[in-house]
């Protein structure tokens, strides 16, 4: 941990000294009017840690450079390998998670009232992991809120009872009906390790929901 923080400090100092390590030209708003510059994607993020949890490191670059259109093949295969292999869950649970988590985007239903609810569109508002107490509204807005414990939500899906609990009432394309509990949860029962929560909450964060831009001031 100490080594990590030391490196992180060096990283911060270096960012103070520069903003680019490449030979790409600097952009500027008024100077590129009328331009036809072409930009190639390097990184992509939609949901929380989908590639990082389910894909081995060697696959990350290809995923980062791809569009979400490819997720239902490549990323779904990664999810299946992790869920049925590493997490030792059943094939139906794996299939549900592949359909739930790909394509790797945030879905939001802007007609729904209340707070954001990670995966709330797909799960019909059945996942509740707001770290600041009860969520306001239907839980069907979806998207992702600043104070949502998306880590615990994801861990519960993969290692816990979430999928058997919510499958029948969800709106996940390609999935229908109840999914049996496979009994392979890693939630502390029968002396098994706990992988359904990292036991970290958002209590140490300084969100300011009263004023844009709502994230906490720099530390």
């Amino acid at each position, binding site marked *: 941990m100490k080594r990590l923080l030391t490196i992180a400090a*060096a*990283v*911060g100092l*270096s*960012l*103070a000294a*520069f*903003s*680019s*390590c490449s030979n*790409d*030209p*600097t*952009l*500027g*708003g*008024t*100077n590129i009017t*009328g*331009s036809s510059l072409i*930009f*190639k*994607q390097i*990184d*992509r*993020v*939609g949901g*929380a840690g989908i590639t990082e*949890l389910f894909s*081995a*490191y060697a696959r990350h670059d290809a995923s*980062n*450079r791809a569009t979400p259109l490819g997720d239902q093949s490549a990323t779904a295969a990664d999810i299946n390998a992790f869920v049925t292999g*590493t997490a*030792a869950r059943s094939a139906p649970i794996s299939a549900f998670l592949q359909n739930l988590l790909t394509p*790797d*985007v945030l*879905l*939001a239903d802007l007609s729904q009232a209340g*707070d954001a609810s990670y995966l709330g569109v797909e799960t019909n508002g059945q996942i509740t992991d707001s770290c600041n107490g009860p969520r306001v509204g239907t839980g069907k*807005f979806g*998207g*992702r809120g600043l104070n949502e*414990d998306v880590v615990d939500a994801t861990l519960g899906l993969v290692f816990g009872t979430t999928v058997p609990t919510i499958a029948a009432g969800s709106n996940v394309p390609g999935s229908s009906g109840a999914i049996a509990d496979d009994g392979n949860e890693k939630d502390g029962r029968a002396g*098994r390790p*706990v992988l359904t929560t*990292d*036991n*970290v909450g*958002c209590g*140490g*964060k300084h969100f300011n929901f*009263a*004023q*844009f*831009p709502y*994230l906490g*001031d*720099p*530390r």
Partner: protein
Amino acid sequence: MKIARPVGGLAALCALAVSAVLYCGTPVRGFDIQDSAAIVARPGVDISDTYFFPSPTNPNDVVIVMNLSPGLPAGTGNTAFFDSSALYTLKFDTNYASEAVGSRPTENLVMQFSMSLPASGTQQVFVYGPSVPNSTGSTTSLVNAGTTNGTGLINKSFTTSSAIAVFAGVREDPFFFDLTQFYSIVPDRHLGSSNATCLPGGSGTCPQGFNTAGAASDFFSNSNVLSIVVEMPKSFLTMNGNSLVAYWATSSTQSGN
């Protein structure tokens, strides 16, 4: 002309910044941090998280957040800058509900951001769109032929010509996770590790579970990110009559490296 800045200029900038060279060559751990060699070499395009939520202050608005350069330590609030060669894009598919499963999403609305070189302790922020993209997929170009819809400065909120609120600057990293323990459990997710996972199918001797509440710690505590935050009316995303929107964020450069 800024876009024709000599190649040697930026190369020299990197070469002169000794600490920058350290960053360019030193991998750091992360969940969605430095998760490819290309990103290790270019931390300014490293997207750590993105958020999409109803405005806490205006029920007619939504807020979109794209966080970059994770791991900025405390005290870097006024000294961290965006990559001035990168294009940051928020991508929306407002037709998601009517597209076939397995053949979606495809972006039909984008909002883009570029930044100037830092100068005198600040950095200009340029906003393009929201507009229909010139093309879809993993290559992109500036909408409206590069004509900006708004201009502001890093770390200061401003408003675009279409009344969208924008903030681009340093914020506390809102993400919370015991990342250290995660990589102890599944080291094969981690850059540079050749250790096997300890979970089923692996042969490692590492921990198989997370720490107890008293022992767990937030790896991202007391650290910062570079955030792009926009607040826009919901109507900007529902103008075609669909309330369901798919969203993701990308970072790009001309070289792709």
